[in-house]
């Protein structure tokens, strides 16, 4: 691994904050990273290290355009974001937003992502928030930078600002195109020192030429050639790979350990800090081989929970609840109903199973710590490492190479803390990459959940009562999207992280899982809507439209229905059609599916999925489609079992007048319900528990 010269505060070049010092290095790094995402390899190498961790006055995103972008002396523009790239495609779409607003070609933009030395502070990459919340300040920064460039060009060219145009990284006189100055000539390599009194407006979407066009991923070349670097691909001189001793069960405690066998293994070092026992070796596989020689005895776990008794436990462990939403009166609603239906729904724990296991490399040098990690939350990792090592946060730098899926599980950085502890013990850089087994043990899980619903409709088929209790899995998307006068939603216990009582609630760590809370809430609520529709003698589509007041949601449902192109009738129709809808944090989704069920095998074959999603203004329609398709496919996994194919998923509706909403998660949340409803329509048997495995389907058919 080539390590370039490190610039530190105090260096002359650093102090001037200008010149060509970085461009050559940056090109070098671009080559290493293979494009798309730039990973810097040593402290302060980058452009303006002062901006690392910058925050606005309110603790949110900063106001200074320099925090977000830098125009290099070669005219290339670097975009800095504390967000990370884990497949969701913001490496492309954020670059598009910047290119659009600054008027530079997309391929002139380099992305620096998740580098705590260089990027503005960010709480993390989760909740489909990157475009929605980071996009606007990025656009504003680019618009202001463009405004400054116009001002500088005006002075330089002697042309009034309003007679100047910007295009392809150049400002020119609208009447005399030969009169021009490139951005590089105007500010190349320097901080933007001029600030504008009035913030220039951002472009209206109708003026866009980059944003809104289907654009291939800018990281594709690096990823198809194997050049893309993930955390496990970073090499440092003297680094050792760790294999860590693991208990047989959560809650088991270490009684005795004999490491003498491993100590004799050639090249192996054993390090220990309390319960953390690890074997270090220059080769990861040999570290694992040596670890197998460690003999350990454990006190068994006191946990009595298993997947048969977990639901009773979840319902009884926490008596306190909070009101998520309440309107009207349940008693009054109950009096208005012509029919009331009560049901319970259940969901099991689900692993994130990211393609790339949790990985981290930690180097401690002269009291400064460098971390490379597969994390969704680099700034959180920075805090955790500082706390673990008893250092100041300023002494910890976290860099985030490409991340091989996050899915919520890489908000928690257990592997980073382990690598930090081991690097300190070993006095040399230590790399920790969880094995797949460790991943299925130490990663957090989507919490198992129970939902109780009592609801009813009146003689007109209008839902008038909605009494919803959710247990231990988070309240996101638990508010009905339907127009219901008398409703109450109670959430018991904590959210997906388990809340304060997590240790006694769940037998292992739980956490956000793509569309957290929502994917199981929607399974319950949208399954139940179908139960109501049947009881009301209506088909599931008409019943929904009949009970929706939100015009935007109706449009989305109608768009999906039109593309689905099949008429729903009262379930079970024997045809296997299903529908589920949601409002996921402002993104509206309607998903329809057609399935065939092999009753003898209990096997579900998904023939077709149509997904209409209104996610507001779409920056990269190609990227949005990829996210939705991925959501549909991944959703089939949690709904049924992994590995089942689907037929098609499409974006049918775009709404550019609405500011961009999130796209990485919404569709995944509908998949449990849409398939439960389609299965019911096919065979007349409802599955109340996720996943809907062949065994459960066969059992339900027998019952």
């Amino acid at each position, binding site marked *: 691994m080539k390590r370039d010269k490190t610039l530190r505060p105090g260096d002359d070049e650093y102090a001037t904050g200008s010149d060509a010092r970085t461009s050559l290095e940056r090109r070098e790094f671009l080559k290493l990273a293979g494009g798309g995402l730039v990973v810097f390899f040593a402290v302060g190498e980058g452009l303006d290290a002062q901006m690392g961790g910058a925050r606005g006055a309110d603790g949110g995103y900063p106001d200074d355009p320099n925090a977000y972008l830098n125009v290099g002396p070669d005219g290339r523009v670097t975009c800095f974001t504390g967000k990370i790239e884990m497949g969701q495609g913001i490496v492309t779409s954020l670059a598009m937003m910047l290119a659009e607003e600054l008027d530079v070609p997309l391929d002139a933009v380099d992305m620096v992502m998740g580098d705590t030395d260089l990027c503005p502070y960010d709480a993390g990459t989760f909740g489909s928030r990157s475009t929605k919340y980071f996009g606007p300040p990025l656009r504003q920064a680019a618009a202001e930078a463009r405004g400054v460039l116009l001002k500088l060009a005006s002075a330089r060219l002697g042309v009034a600002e309003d007679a100047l145009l910007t295009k392809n990284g150049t400002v020119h006189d609208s009447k005399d195109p030969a009169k021009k100055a490139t951005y590089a000539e105007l500010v190349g390599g320097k901080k933007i020192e001029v600030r504008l009194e009035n913030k220039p407006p951002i472009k209206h979407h109708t003026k866009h030429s980059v944003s809104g066009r289907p654009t291939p991923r800018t990281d594709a070349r690096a990823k198809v*050639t194997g050049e893309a670097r993930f955390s496990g691909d970073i090499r440092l001189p003297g680094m050792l790979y760790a294999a860590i001793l693991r208990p047989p069960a959560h809650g088991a405690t270490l009684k005795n350990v004999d490491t003498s066998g491993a100590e004799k293994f050639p090249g192996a070092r054993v390090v220990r800090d309390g319960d953390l026992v690890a074997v270090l070796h220059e080769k990861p596989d040999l570290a694992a081989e040596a670890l197998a020689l460690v003999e350990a005895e454990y006190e068994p776990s006191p946990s009595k929970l298993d997947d048969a008794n977990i639901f009773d436990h979840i319902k009884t462990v926490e008596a306190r609840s909070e009101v998520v939403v309440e309107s009207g009166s349940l008693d009054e609603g109950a009096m208005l109903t012509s029919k009331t239906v009560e049901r319970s729904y259940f969901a099991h724990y689900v692993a994130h199973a990211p393609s790339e296991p949790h990985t981290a490399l930690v180097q401690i040098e002269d009291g400064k710590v460098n971390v490379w990690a597969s994390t969704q939350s680099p700034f959180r990792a920075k805090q955790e490492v500082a706390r673990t090592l008893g250092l100041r946060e300023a002494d910890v730098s976290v860099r985030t190479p490409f991340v091989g899926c996050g899915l919520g599980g890489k908000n928690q950085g257990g592997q980073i803390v382990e690598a930090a502890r081991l690097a300190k013990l070993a006095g040399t850089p230590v790399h920790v990459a969880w094995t797949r087994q460790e991943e299925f043990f130490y990663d957090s899980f989507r919490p198992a959940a129970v939902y109780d619903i009592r609801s009813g409709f009146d003689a007109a088929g209008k839902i008038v009562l909605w009494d919803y209790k959710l247990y231990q899995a988070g309240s996101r998307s638990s508010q009905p999207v339907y127009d219901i006068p008398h409703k109450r939603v109670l959430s018991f216990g904590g959210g997906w992280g388990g809340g304060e009582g997590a240790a006694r609630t769940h037998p292992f760590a739980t956490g956000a899982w793509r569309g957290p809370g929502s994917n199981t809430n929607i399974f319950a609520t949208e399954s139940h809507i179908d139960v109501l529709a049947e009881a009301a003698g209506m088909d599931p589509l008409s019943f929904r439209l009949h009970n929706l007041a939100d015009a935007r949601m109706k449009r989305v449902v109608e768009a999906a229905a039109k593309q689905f192109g099949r008429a729903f009738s009262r379930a079970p129709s024997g045809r296997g059609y299903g529908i589920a809808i949601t409002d996921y944090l402002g993104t509206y989704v309607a998903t329809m599916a057609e399935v065939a069920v092999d009753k003898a095998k209990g096997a579900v074959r998904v023939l077709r999925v149509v997904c209409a999603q209104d996610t507001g203004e779409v920056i990269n329609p190609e990227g949005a489609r990829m996210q939705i398709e991925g959501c549909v496919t991944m959703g089939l996994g949690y709904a049924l079992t992994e590995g089942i194919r689907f037929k098609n998923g499409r974006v049918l509706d775009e709404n550019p007048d609405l500011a961009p909403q999130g796209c990485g998660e919404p569709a995944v949340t509908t998949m449990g319900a849409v398939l439960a409803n389609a299965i019911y329509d096919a065979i007349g048997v409802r599955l109340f528990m996720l996943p809907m495995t062949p065994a459960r389907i066969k059992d339900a058919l027998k019952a």
Partner: protein
Amino acid sequence: MDKTIRFELNGKEVAIETSAERMLLWVLRTDLDHTGTKYGCGEGYCGACTVLVDGKPTFSCQFPLAKAEGRSVLTIEGLARGGRLHPLQQAFADEGALQCGYCTPGMILQAYALLLRKPDPTEAEIADALETNLCRCGAYNRIVKAVRAASQKMTMKVTGHEAR
């Protein structure tokens, strides 16, 4: 017990002195710095570590180095020639057949092995051949499309880039 193992890696002879029982995956990634080949499960379930050995798709996490002796190993780093992407690589990029990209090298090599056996596979045959390779991002439909697109380009020799 260390031994010297010789094999051809992406067309170049390599000789490596190490324990011959080690799995090829780790030797490639750590000893030979070919990090395009990924660890996914270590048990041959996910296909992230797929390489070609004498033209056959092989899970390198299950393949002892000793067995590589005298054979020819192709990793993702060996697929592009002279900076020019192989049609499969190009098709994966064009079709957006990747998201996080972690499974991509193994996926492309599995597809490459299929095209060596069967230059013009149907979509069902492609899906079947890629059954061993998992993509958690769920890019499967696009992956199948990309392989199909590449096979059509290659059989038409539009690019003049033949299966190697």
